[in-house]
């Protein structure tokens, strides 16, 4: 195994991790501020990807596609929040789970109806589709590097937003005491809609970016949603820092596990069984990570102790 190959896998893990963060940030904000568990977050991710694919195909502009993914997911977020989600804040988690599960069904089948069952592929503009040479003889796709940059920029932006702005102050107040913030005269309904739409827009952007690398298809949101859950369980619900650390941990563990485990088993068994055993175990690795975190910190790495 060469160092360059390892570095490339590490970058892949980082890229996966930052996209998981962009997904998980919305989930953890919505849970932290509104106390809502939103399964339909993955649908917003899918919606963003489809919006990007459709607009990019129609206009020929990838940048317009990305803008469309943000806008479509944010608008869908506002609609869903005002029509349905709003009625669920006071309900128990079971009602929230079922209602947002129902939303997944509506979104998934609605998208299938609108776009058909076949995956769509996005064409990256030439300017973004090449590779770059990094120090140490590593060549890495430019677009993936860009994704890492965008993810880190969003992380930085969220930190600033939550810790330095008026909106962020309200978000933090909402996390610690929902009644107090209402007493302060903040329009809590509007705050909730804004937070939900922000989370939705981030999910939509993540969907568009990941969809550009992989494929845009029905049901692409749920596997990512479940990984985002693992991320916030590891990081601690409600914590942006936790979401970031958890996302990078999960992204890197998963990617390196898939890369290294088959090779490791190759040392003790024949190549084909090493590949199957290794990849089967690699697919379980992040859940083992989650279980380990739970043993030592039941409320996650950055979660408030119960």
């Amino acid at each position, binding site marked *: 195994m060469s160092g360059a190959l390892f570095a490339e896998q590490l970058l892949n893990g980082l890229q996966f991790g930052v996209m998981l963060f962009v997904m998980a940030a919305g989930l953890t904000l919505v*849970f932290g501020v509104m106390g809502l*568990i939103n399964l339909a977050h993955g649908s917003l991710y899918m919606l963003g990807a489809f919006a990007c694919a459709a607009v990019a195909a129609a206009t020929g502009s990838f940048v317009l596609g990305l803008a469309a993914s943000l806008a479509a997911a944010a608008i869908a977020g506002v609609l869903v929040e005002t029509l*349905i989600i709003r*009625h*669920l804040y006071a*309900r128990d*988690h*079971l*009602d929230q*789970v*079922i*209602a947002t*599960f*129902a*939303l*997944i*069904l*509506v979104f*998934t*089948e*609605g998208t*299938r*109806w609108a776009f058909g069952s076949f995956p769509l592929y996005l064409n990256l503009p030439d300017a973004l589709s090449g590779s770059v040479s990094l120090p140490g003889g590593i060549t890495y796709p430019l677009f993936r590097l860009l994704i890492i940059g965008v993810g880190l920029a969003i992380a930085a932006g969220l930190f600033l937003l939550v810790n330095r702005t008026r909106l962020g102050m309200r978000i933090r107040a909402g996390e610690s005491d929902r009644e107090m913030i209402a007493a302060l005269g903040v329009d809590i309904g509007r705050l909730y809609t804004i937070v939900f739409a922000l989370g939705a827009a981030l999910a939509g952007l993540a969907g568009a970016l990941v969809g550009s690398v992989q494929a845009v298809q029905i049901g692409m949101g*749920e*596997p990512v949603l*479940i990984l985002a*859950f*693992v991320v*916030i*369980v590891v990081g601690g*619900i409600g914590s942006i820092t936790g979401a970031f650390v958890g996302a990078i941990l999960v992204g890197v563990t998963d990617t390196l596990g898939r890369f290294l485990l088959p090779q490791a088993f190759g040392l003790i068994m024949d190549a084909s069984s090493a590949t*199957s055993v290794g*990849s*089967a175990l690699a*697919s*379980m690795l992040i*859940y083992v990570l*989650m*279980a380990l975190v*739970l*043993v030592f910190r*039941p*409320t996650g790495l950055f979660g408030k102790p*119960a």
Partner: protein
Amino acid sequence: MRRETLITLTLLALLLGAAVYGHRGNEPFIITLAAKAAIFAIAGAGLNLALGYGGLVSFGHAAFFGIGGYAAGIIASAARNYEPVMTWPIEIAGSTSMPVIWIVAIIAAMIIAIPIGIFSLRTGGVYFIMITLAFAQMLYYFAVSWPAYGGEDGLSFYVRNSVFGLNMMDPWTYFTVCFGVLAVVLALMAVLVRSRFGLALEMARQNAQRLTASGIRPFNVRLTAFVISAMITGLAGALYADLNRFVSPAMLSWHTSGEIMVFVILGGVARLGGPVAGACLYLLLEQTLDGVTDYWQVLLGIVLLLVVLFARGGLVGLLAGRRAAHD
């Protein structure tokens, strides 16, 4: 007789009636549908113990449903290929006897449920939901990537397994077996929630602080309920695999977990007859809406939303009024 008991018996009678109607009219499709409803109801009844009576919102019961299914598939296909299921550490031979398969499925679900329960019950609330979901997903990916039992393609075993020498390929016979198992499971559930354990579980749901102050650890009570719940859902999984003569990772998917939960919600949470009502309603919706549009799940989603927003007690809740397990 209590109103809720009456409703449960009526629901069972309706299910039986539907199958009898299919049997008389020689419509195997209806009988098989009724068998499917009975199996889904068993899976839902299992989940209902944890989710309804215990307040443990498990979004990972597909894990147990799937484990039950794979137990059935692996044992049955081993028997048909004249191979042992495993040779180490103990040798286990294949079998086509349903009772043997049921017991193995139940034990397998138990073995998986204990660690999952121990990890996920360390936390509560929304963490519990996410962690159960995540562990089920772990098994799903494992099943997809482990090639020995068909991987992504699943495992077929062509002929249903048998019990008492009956011809299980006959839809009516298969239905009666499933219906019998459902009746036994519901009777067991009725006894369980009225027992000392049921009282402790009810207290764990309503006020864990009080349960602790009374000298009983909520964790132990919840873990027991979670494991029993998983065992029942595992049994349903074995029956479902037999119904289809096929098992695949889809049985382990998050979508299956959601569906089992939907049976409970549509029918009524913490209602004995809830899962029966829910499973029947779900299959009825599927059959009728499927005729309206190819995208029937959009309509199902809307129905579900309406139930959550406006009819929170589910079908049994509408019929029976306020819940009354321990009053």
